[in-house]
């Protein structure tokens, strides 16, 4: 299921190009914000929850997910170098699964780790807020990576669609239309975080059972469908 060679190629493609700079910029911004807030406002649980919920989980995690998820396969399909993978006797499902693992690991490294650091800076993990949001970022990383990997396999405009989903759907619709929140990776991850933190500082519109089912369902379905897409991927000539 997991091919170390495919993984190595994917890591190098993902972290070797300019993408690595973009991947690093947002976490850096989060930590700068955390330091500034702590210095200006002091340690406050509500403020910590606002920064981690409003910026880290709502904005940074999905954007990192878009970059890592689509970046794990999209550029290869765009420039056609994916033929060097596809012309090998390696199962398409193995290629997708391996790329998913790489995308998840990258998203987690660039989103969950800085979330934890920022949380510790903001209020020293008071009321388990730092850990709760870190867990939420870890959970969301899995679903985002799977969703955006599928998008990278299916569309040439994966980054645009991914950003529209991440910013417009998750952030804008989520706050305007109550129903949209039920179908939001962010809310599902928050349901898990709520279990960790307890109390009212971390809340979700979705219950834990529903959130767990939806998270698993979306991740599995997106991965399976990406595998199907790759099996039938057409590589047109340059004529």
């Amino acid at each position, binding site marked *: 299921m997991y*091919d*170390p*060679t*495919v993984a*190595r*190629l994917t890591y*190098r*493609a993902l972290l*070797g*190009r300019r993408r690595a700079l973009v991947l690093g910029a947002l976490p850096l911004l989060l930590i700068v914000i955390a330091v500034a807030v702590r210095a200006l406002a002091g340690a406050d649980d509500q403020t910590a929850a606002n920064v981690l919920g409003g910026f880290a989980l709502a904005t940074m995690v999905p954007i990192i997910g878009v970059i890592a998820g689509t970046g794990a396969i999209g550029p290869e399909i765009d*420039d*056609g*170098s994916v*033929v*060097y*993978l*596809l*012309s*090998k*006797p*390696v*199962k*398409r499902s193995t290629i997708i699964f391996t790329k998913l693992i790489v995308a998840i690991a990258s998203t987690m490294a660039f989103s969950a780790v800085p979330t934890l650091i920022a949380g510790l800076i903001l209020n020293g993990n008071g009321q388990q807020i730092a850990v709760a949001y870190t867990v939420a970022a870890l959970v969301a990383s899995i679903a985002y990576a799977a969703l955006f990997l599928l998008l990278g396999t299916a569309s040439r405009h994966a980054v645009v669609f991914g950003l529209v989903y991440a910013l417009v759907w998750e952030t804008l619709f989520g706050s305007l239309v109550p129903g949209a929140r039920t179908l939001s990776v962010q809310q599902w991850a928050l349901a898990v975080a709520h279990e960790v933190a307890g109390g009212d500082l971390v809340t979700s519109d979705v219950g834990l059972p529903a959130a767990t089912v939806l998270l698993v369902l979306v991740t599995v379905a997106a991965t399976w469908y990406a595998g199907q897409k790759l*099996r*039938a*991927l*057409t*590589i*047109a*000539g*340059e*004529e």
Partner: protein
Amino acid sequence: MTTLSIDHVSRWFGNVVAVNDITMTIGPGVTGLLGPNGAGKSTLINMMAGFLAPSTGSITLDGQPVWRNEQIYRHIGIVPEREAMYDFLTGREFVLASAELHGLGAKAAQKALATVEMEYAQDRKISTYSKGMRQRVKMAGALVHEPSLLLLDEPFNGMDPRQRMQLMDLLRRMGDEGRTVLFSSHILEEVEQLAWHIEVIVAGRHAASGDFRRIRRLMTDRPHRYLVRSSDDRALAAALIADPSTAGIEVDLTEGALHIQAVDFGRFTALLPKVARDLGIRLHTVSPSDESLESVFSYLVAA
């Protein structure tokens, strides 16, 4: 014995028919797929390589379908035309990755790099390679598992004459070993130098198939048109028309040139310089006026 069978294969993209009902069998030895640019060669090769589904018809390798069958790549090596590779890798890393994806190791990779004579640059990044070097590293990646079928899309594009000769030697050797080698080209001379067997594709159709000598003769027997400028056009015209190798000559006063129609290509090309020398006429321009590949091919299709 590896035989690739293309059976009534068509492929269209929307309203455009790229490949139109082609049936052919590619057996061991070197086969050249010849056709002008845009004839559908790449589309056909992509279908042979399992990268594209035929709209109708089927392609099989020794009875096994190539589409949606990744295990078939144990037997196929592919050298794509497009330039994009994993540019961030070194040549050695690229070939090693190819070997590993076939379940092979560093030894197979090193052997393939030696075969294409790229060991000297194997530790440089692919992004620094010339087109010919890229082509050879692609070749090493395709050879690493010693496939019985090798597909190459325009492999000589961008190569200098020496690299071209090296690659030709390599492909010839593979054909002699009994492998099935198919390469596409839009340059007749390339195909003629290398292929034992030629398949000609024009406008998506299978136009001719067979021994290159027969096809070459079809191409050289047709009337050739030349544009000639000289120090004395009329004297030259009079001397040329006396010979049976010339069917007609027009003196173009506005152009200041002769339009000559030759029917015996070999004889005419020997005659022209001889006549000019004997009469003391200087030749300023001798250019074939319909040598564009398209006209050669349309002549072939009509034959």
